[in-house]
């Protein structure tokens, strides 16, 4: 019976490459990992967006019309919906001039979780407390 904490650090933008996109879908899969684990064992990812990584979850994305794919915004909303902890680096928000209302929430889907805007120091702390750190 153990929980393993993982820090998923998304540091690259979405769409051009696939890896940063896969960070979100891999985090989402924490919901079903129990089928492969012993009773009571869990894996808990914290999803953190730093640097260019945070550009990829802005509100208002539409990747379906031009490219026929789900947007990363929708993946981010799904992460909130399944109660993942999602963090965005405060300093990078300021650096890129991104305001809180440009970040998505999933109120419309009934999610209670919100994206947490935190200083980089807190993201470092999440990495410290995690058993494993995965950069995307």
């Amino acid at each position, binding site marked *: 019976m*153990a929980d*393993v904490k*993982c820090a998923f650090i998304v540091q*690259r933008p979405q769409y051009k*490459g*696939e*890896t*940063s996109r*896969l*960070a979100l*879908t*891999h985090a*989402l*899969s*924490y919901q*079903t*990992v129990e*089928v*492969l*684990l012993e009773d009571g*064992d*869990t*894996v808990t*990812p914290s999803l953190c967006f730093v640097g260019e990584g945070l550009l990829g979850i802005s509100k208002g994305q539409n990747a379906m019309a031009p490219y026929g794919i789900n947007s990363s915004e929708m993946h981010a909303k799904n992460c909130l919906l399944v109660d993942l902890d999602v963090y965005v680096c405060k300093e990078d928000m300021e650096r890129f001039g991104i305001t809180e209302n440009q970040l998505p929430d999933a109120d419309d889907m009934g999610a209670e979780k919100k994206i947490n805007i935190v200083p980089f120091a807190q993201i470092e702390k999440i990495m410290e407390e995690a058993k*494993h750190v*995965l*950069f*995307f």
Partner: protein
Amino acid sequence: MGVLTMGVFPGLVGSGCYDFALKLAGAAADKGHVVNIWFSGNATVSVKAHQKHLKDYSTGEKYLVELMEKGVEVCTCEACTVSRGIQKTESIAKIQWNAMHWYLSKIHCSDRVLQIGGE
């Protein structure tokens, strides 16, 4: 002895990241460690059987088969793989096909996780 799980996302044949992952897996297995490899994204194409080894492209299939003979577990992301047109019947034997939670489940019991993302 420890457990090392690697997630390999970029690359396949011709990619330094892919070569690195396979070589490191081999070295760890030779030392008696338990090694798991998860392929996702473009790296999933590396499960395709019948790769022709040319001197301008790095080792793929042959090395992967050797790793599995050494006990390394290798699994590919089924969705990523079929979206690229590769069916289970065309896969190198003994490679597992599963969903992303396979990777997380291996992470659960690992001493070290090396997620090779990039691109």
